[in-house]
């Protein structure tokens, strides 16, 4: 059987309009279920949350007077400014690569999208490890600052010991919680992309 002839027959007989087809009159109003679009949406959500938390900490900075509380909140604000910027760059790169997927090679675009998202997640997971102890300390200090005897409290070795224990226990908890959240938001789509990249890369 000649392949080209069979293909012509196939096109005429089998590759016709699907039965359930409905015309799309306004594509701009359609909602996407595409994995890369989902990754983009997850990145948008991360970005929005970064901005919200940043604003919350800025407000808190002005609400608390003790310089030590301001110092810890300031560190958190610095971290959020960095992560917001980093997430924006990731989002912008992801968007660019997705546009390129329709102009250049699929494999390269998928590899780039996978790499951008994967690196961003891993980097943020690790970088945040240094921030969690400061977040715990900031929260703890904010709690102490509610009391009138803040200055004497922070000199109390028992209170500092509790702070140390809280930082040591809460850091891994926050780390694994963040890891779990990343897994829910990104992992499924990243795996899907990776399996396709692997298939394209499969050696002969």
């Amino acid at each position, binding site marked *: 059987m000649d392949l080209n002839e069979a293909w012509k027959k*196939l096109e005429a007989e089998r590759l016709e309009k699907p*039965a359930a*087809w409905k015309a799309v009159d306004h594509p*701009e109003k359609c909602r996407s279920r595409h994995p890369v679009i989902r990754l983009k949406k997850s990145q948008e959500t991360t970005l929005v949350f970064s901005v919200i938390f940043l604003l919350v900490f800025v407000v808190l900075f002005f609400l608390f007077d003790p310089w030590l509380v301001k110092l810890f909140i300031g560190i958190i604000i610095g971290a959020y400014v960095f992560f917001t910027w980093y997430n924006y760059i990731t989002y912008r790169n992801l968007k660019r690569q997705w546009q390129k997927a329709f102009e250049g090679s699929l*494999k390269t675009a*998928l590899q780039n999208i996978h790499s951008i998202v994967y690196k961003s997640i891993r980097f943020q997971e690790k970088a945040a490890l240094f921030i969690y102890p400061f977040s715990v300390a900031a929260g703890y200090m904010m709690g102490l600052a509610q009391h009138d005897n803040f200055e004497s409290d922070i000199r109390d070795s028992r209170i500092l010991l509790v702070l140390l224990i809280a930082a040591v226990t809460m850091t891994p908890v926050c780390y694994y919680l963040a890891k779990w959240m990343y897994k829910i938001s990104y992992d499924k789509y990243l795996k899907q992309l990776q399996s396709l990249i692997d298939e*394209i890369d499969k050696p002969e």
Partner: protein
Amino acid sequence: MTVTEKEFTALMRENRGIIFKVIRLYVNHPEDEQDLFQEIHLQAWRSYTRFNGLSKFSTWLYRVSLNTVLTFKRRPVLVKPDENLEHYGGTHDPHGRTEESEALYLAIRELSEIDRMIITLHLDGYDNEEIADISGLTKNNVAVKLHRIKEALTKKLKVN
């Protein structure tokens, strides 16, 4: 409707056979067919402003359709590979399909998604360089893959 929107709609209407073809070769579920048709339309619309006209609209739409279908989350394939061809007896088809086209359809559906993309483009008249450009494979890799796919298809079709 803007001029761009009108122009886009007209081009899509003219070339929608490409989308149907891709959907028919990759999707097994009626809901997925409609979802994917919408998705391709949406992706094409979003990328249309960046369509530079260096390639033909049909080539560009082929790329958009294949890239979308390959990365779109679909329901698992309901038909197990080999099942159909083994049981395919060439009896009278109520839809008026010939044995050859049905056998080729089933044989193509058994290929991996990337191989399906390569053979579809090849049978539609794209040369190895264009297929390499669309898929991201090297030209040599396309040639090697194509040779093996054709061999596999011919073998499967002869068996039946």
